[in-house]
């Protein structure tokens, strides 16, 4: 036992968790914590807006696959975090957000910069702590990381009243914590796994739908082994994009609102669907009543509440995806089952899969312009190393990435898929770069989204965290414009961004590198320059403001209603 202040205990507890970086901004209510950070080895990255701090912690977490940490002061600092926390919650990303709070005695008095952040965050966090005495701090931090990182991960808030930071107590730093109402289901029911195998082996037209859970549990190798062993084609959800190499012959790519046409078609034709680490979101499966009506569904997820939430499963397996797939592989190995490449010729379903895939891939048309989103993205893929990390903003830029950027190394792609937060990609790419400084990190951006958090350029330049902003600039809120063109009779309102600002100059104003690429040649050069640079580069790529993203499953419709092209 050692006596120290709550603030010191907080920083020490973070150090014990192995935290090496914190993204944040100080203020009156968290100054004691910052004062302790001064003498800590933890790196502090000063953000220009707390929303970005949460996104950076989130991007860091998704690549590091351990919790990212962000700090904010009370009141406005805390509320600025909310969008970032909600984004992490929807995508099951572990972040630990530490906010300052007004002193205990002031809580409930509408004090200066008081805000009930615990109340606000109740439905967008896995848990919220508000330690009321300094002595609680070490255990609270330990529990926060345990909750954030285990089971189905998610954000945890620690709201620390200022006097709790200041007062001293005898501290005990627990090595392990137990929470009686919380015990993640890791091990699946083996009998259920066995019946799942039976179902898969007897299927005529099996398909795997891989979701974000595969990424979270890092079950890339297991998924690939299973698909190859049984020669089952793999679609992913958008959150699951890239958990299976998208250049693999069995890969059909993402399904959903802007899924690959072949994936949307084939997933509805399957007789047995193995859904791994997916929550059957409406964006992926369309109408719940329509999806999977004529198929048997096996659903593996670590969160029991996901089994049957949106879609009733014939076999529901609660367990960690990686652990469950390993058991499955072992059982299959015992049965000595291994299908080979010969299946492509002998198996009707695989033949059909290949034909459909080839057919739809040949249907993809590009526009006449020299530089289009599709061409630009394919060029980027061509020049990026296979293991480069790619994230996106939200809108058409995101959907074009989903359609045209093939993720080769599993786990190198992520995006705000659940909340769809514009402004996520750029700060998240900075967080990802902090997690993996050795890899190039690219944010495929839209002008509207980038505009929202572009002030993180200051962070990336001053903190020396170089990333590439690949800006598909259509001078508009393109995705909204697309809906107005398609569903609102071209009554265009609130979507025109008229070329403001000049992003090359914006980049330069922040001390970053700005390059405009108006031809494929210029783009080629710009990407190469960016990859060689040790400063953040914004590549501004003007594209057609009128271009729509296809395929497109209209909202409220099912996968079979996917519109292939205009």
């Amino acid at each position, binding site marked *: 036992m050692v006596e120290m202040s709550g603030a010191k205990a907080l920083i020490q507890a973070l150090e014990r968790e192995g935290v090496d970086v914190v993204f944040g901004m100080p203020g009156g209510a968290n100054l004691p914590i910052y004062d302790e950070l001064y003498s800590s080895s933890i790196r502090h990255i000063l953000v220009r807006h707390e929303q970005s701090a949460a996104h950076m912690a989130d991007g860091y977490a998704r690549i590091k696959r351990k919790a990212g940490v962000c700090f904010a002061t009370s009141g406005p600092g805390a509320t600025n975090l909310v969008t970032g926390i909600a984004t992490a919650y929807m995508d099951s990303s572990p972040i630990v957000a530490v906010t300052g709070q007004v002193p205990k005695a002031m809580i409930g008095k509408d004090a200066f910069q008081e805000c009930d952040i*615990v*109340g606000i965050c*109740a*439905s967008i966090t*896995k*848990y*919220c702590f*508000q330690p009321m005495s300094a002595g609680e701090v070490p255990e609270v931090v330990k529990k926060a990381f345990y*909750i954030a990182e285990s089971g189905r991960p998610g954000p945890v808030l620690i709201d620390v009243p200022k006097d709790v930071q200041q007062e001293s107590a005898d501290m005990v730093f627990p090595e392990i914590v137990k*929470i*009686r*109402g*919380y015990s993640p289901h890791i091990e699946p029911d083996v009998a259920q796994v066995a019946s799942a195998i039976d179902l898969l082996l007897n299927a005529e037209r099996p398909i795997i739908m891989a979701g974000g859970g595969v990424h979270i549990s890092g079950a890339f190798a297991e998924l690939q082994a299973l698909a190859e062993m049984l020669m089952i084609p793999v679609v992913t959800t958008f959150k699951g994009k890239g958990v299976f190499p998208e250049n693999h012959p069995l890969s059909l790519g993402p399904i959903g609102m802007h899924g690959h046409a072949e994936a949307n078609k084939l997933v509805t034709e399957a007789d047995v669907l193995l859904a791994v680490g997916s929550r059957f979101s409406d964006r992926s499966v369309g109408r719940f009543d329509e999806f999977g009506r004529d198929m048997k569904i096996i659903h593996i997820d670590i*969160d*029991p*509440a996901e*089994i*049957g*939430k949106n879609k*009733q499963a014939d076999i529901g397996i609660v367990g960690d995806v990686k652990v469950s797939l390993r058991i499955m592989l072992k059982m299959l190995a015992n049965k000595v089952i291994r299908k080979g490449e010969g299946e492509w010729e002998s198996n009707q379903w695989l033949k059909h899969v290949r034909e459909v895939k080839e057919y739809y891939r040949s249907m993809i048309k590009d526009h006449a312009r020299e530089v289009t989103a599709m061409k630009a993205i394919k060029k980027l893929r061509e020049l990026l190393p296979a293991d480069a990390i790619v994230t996106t903003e939200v809108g058409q830029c995101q959907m074009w990435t989903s359609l045209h950027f093939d993720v080769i190394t599993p786990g190198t792609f992520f995006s705000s898929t659940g909340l769809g937060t514009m402004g996520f990609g750029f700060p998240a790419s900075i967080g990802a770069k902090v997690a993996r400084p050795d890899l190039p990190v690219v944010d495929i951006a839209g002008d509207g989204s980038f505009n929202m958090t572009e002030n993180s350029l200051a962070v990336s330049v001053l903190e020396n965290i170089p990333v590439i902003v690949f800006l598909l600039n259509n001078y508009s809120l393109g995705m909204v414009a697309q809906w107005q063109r398609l569903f609102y009779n071209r009554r265009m309102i609130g979507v025109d961004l008229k070329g403001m600002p000049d992003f090359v100059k914006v980049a330069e104003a922040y001390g970053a590198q700005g390059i405009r690429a108006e031809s494929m040649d210029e783009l080629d050069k710009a990407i190469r320059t960016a990859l060689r640079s040790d400063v953040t580069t914004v590549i501004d790529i003007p594209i057609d403001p009128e271009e729509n993203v296809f395929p497109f499953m209209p909202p409220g419709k099912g996968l079979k209603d996917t519109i292939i092209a205009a």
Partner: protein
Amino acid sequence: MTWRIISALVENKPGVLFRVSNMFRARGFNIESLSVGPTEEQDLSRITITINSDDHTTEQLVKQLRKIIDVVDVIKLPLDNSVYRELALIKLKAEEPTTRLEIMNLVNVFRGKVVDISKRSIMVEITGTPDKIDAFKALVEHYGIIQLARTGVCALPRGVVYE
């Protein structure tokens, strides 16, 4: 749609009831009644929830409840093998002595109690299943209900249950 009782053991600390009720609101579950109180263990409270819903919704509600970290245990109570009670206080208009007598007779039949009498009103306490309280209420409604308060259902399974 059937009437069901769900019993949850939760940590007895601030904010837990908020998390639970906030989850119902956020996920659109409609609760009929909810009661909270201490249990045999000092640091645990029991929340008893009644809902009118189908199997699927009930299953979802139970799972979402279990997911809340401060919720330690959740069970669906079998109606035919549980004891469940609710308490109601009903204040009725009773200006004539005959009315009072009538009401007191009804209260006796329902094994209730008269707990307060004034010149113009009578307050009765009825304990029992929600059905019984509904039935009593229906019988006395025409006298004029001035005020009514119900506790919500509180319930336990029959027999010995060891975890």
